[in-house]
């Protein structure tokens, strides 16, 4: 019984984390058709930004519990700075290239950003554990869980629900959905694609940075922390169907629960279980679980 509860909780927490790091990737792909490898580097930058902002907060004598403010603030800061730079300078001029070429462009950006992080913050690790330790833990059955992990669950829910609300209810959201569905038609109907791309890419960067910022308190912040994450986020997004928000959610839940089961019941399999799930899903559903349908007119 307690094992089932543990699998459920661990799976949910891991899924929440996965969803946070993957949702920006799928949104950017859905709108811009860019597989953004630089997402991983943006995640790293988010973590470092959180370290610096929280450090400044503490140095400035900010309230102990107020530290969550600079932590979360890292996301919009990174999104607003890095997003427009990358989009305007590199992605907009190359917009008409093929998907795979764009992917290589973002891979190059990834390499450049990762080394830039080294130039700015150095190779020694940073620790930002206060936000993680501050709220303490709670006992569920006989296992202790940090309250912070449930904060991740809440953050993922807020992001997911907020995004769903924005896309379905707000006017700008409906325009974004129209672009996801059919860029040409949306343009013909007067959507300003330049502006939408800029906004969506920056928002995607902010989401990646949020993932990094919220992860920072639980790990040692090092320049290469984004490498594994980007591969994981890919797996989640591909399983769910590239470009689908609901797909990212289900992909995260699937990977989270399958992995939690593997760790608790068959630890040997943890190494490649995610790739196995990904390969299996793709073999059964070649475009992932919830790929937005695209019919070609001939």
């Amino acid at each position, binding site marked *: 019984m307690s094992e089932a509860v543990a699998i459920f909780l661990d799976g949910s927490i891991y899924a929440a984390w996965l969803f946070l790091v993957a949702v920006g990737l799928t949104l950017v792909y859905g709108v811009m058709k860019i*597989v953004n490898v630089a997402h991983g580097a943006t995640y790293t930058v988010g973590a470092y930004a959180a370290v610096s902002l929280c450090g400044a907060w503490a140095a400035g004598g900010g309230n102990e519990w107020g530290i969550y403010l600079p932590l979360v603030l890292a996301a919009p800061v990174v999104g607003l700075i890095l997003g427009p730079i990358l989009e305007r300078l*590199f992605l907009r*001029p*190359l917009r008409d*290239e093929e*998907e*795979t*070429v764009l*992917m*290589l*462009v973002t*891979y*190059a*950006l*990834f*390499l*450049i950003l*990762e*080394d*830039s992080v*080294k*130039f700015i913050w150095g190779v020694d690790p940073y620790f930002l554990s206060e936000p993680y330790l501050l709220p303490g833990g709670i006992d569920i059955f006989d296992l202790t869980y940090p309250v912070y992990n449930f904060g991740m669950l809440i953050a993922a829910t807020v992001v997911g629900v907020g995004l769903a609300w924005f896309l379905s209810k707000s006017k700008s959201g409906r325009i974004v959905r129209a672009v996801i569905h059919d860029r040409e038609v949306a343009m013909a109907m007067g959507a300003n694609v330049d502006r939408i791309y800029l906004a969506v890419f920056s928002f995607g960067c902010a989401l990646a940075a949020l993932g990094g910022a919220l992860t920072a308190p639980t790990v040692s912040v090092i320049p290469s922390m984004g490498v594994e994450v980007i*591969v994981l986020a*890919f*797996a989640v997004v*591909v399983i769910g169907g*590239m470009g689908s928000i609901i797909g990212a959610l289900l992909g995260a839940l699937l990977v989270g629960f399958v992995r939690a089961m593997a760790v608790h019941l068959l630890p*040997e399999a943890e*190494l*490649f279980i995610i*790739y*196995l799930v*990904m*390969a299996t899903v*793709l*073999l059964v559903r*070649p*475009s992932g679980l919830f790929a937005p349908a695209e019919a*070609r007119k*001939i």
Partner: protein
Amino acid sequence: MPQRMLAGLSVLVAILAAAPWWMPPWMLFIASGALAKGMAALGLMLLLRGGLVSFGHALYFGIGAYAAGLLVLSGITEFLVLAVLGTLATLVLALILGAFVSRYRGIFFGLLSMALSMVFYGLLIKLQSLGSSDGFNLGGIHLLSIPMQGTAGQVPTYLMTLVLSVLAAIGIDQFLRSRYGLLTKALRDNELRVEYLGQSVRQLVLLNYIIAAGLAGLAGVLSAVAVGHIGPEMAYWTTSGEFVFMVILGGLGHVAAAFVGAGVLSAVQAVAYAVAPNSWQFIVGASLLACIVFLPEGLWSLLKRFGRRA
């Protein structure tokens, strides 16, 4: 122009064939590696000409190397046997996996390939008897009575790699000039039309996929012989990424472009390591970006332009 290009390439091959007499040994080693990787990149270029990018091509590089490694462990050290059986092993696997993978296009083809290579990588890590992530050494490989390893083996290995690379380049060049070459080009443009002209797209993709895999497998064997050590990282996605990088760097214009890409990337890496050990990633990333922006058709187009002007 074609005559001139042929003459130029012949001179290049001659210079490379004479390399053991003008290159210092350490550079000869880099050249061996670059040629072997160029061969893998050549296969990838064939796929790319058909519009498909694999982010898991290192799977076959690794399969070739590990097939050779297993043969050496079982006491077979004749290079010809390793090369033939190593390549054969990749071809068989490519036939099986290709049957599934050839259904996919675009990013899904790339990512499914990557997932498959990562499953293989995971299996290798699990195999403690094969050294897990550390891999293992293979020594004593020879071609008939000529050693292929150690000090005496460096030149034979290099020359063998060069010969096989040239043969592969000529073979693929002929292939590209054949009807399949034209069909492959057509495939990249418009698959729907290819189907509506009565040609199975999957068959065509599968054919290219198998050829590409075979080349990567042979490259894996050659690399294993040259380095004398194999490990799971040979099948890791970053190795695949390196192959893609080489193709993009060289361009799709000519079979020699894949080798140009491999050579230049290896040289850039070697120099970057020596000059800027702390920021070589930055340099590699920036050159990739510069290449895509300024040379969308790769270094080959630069050589061609240069040659025309001269």
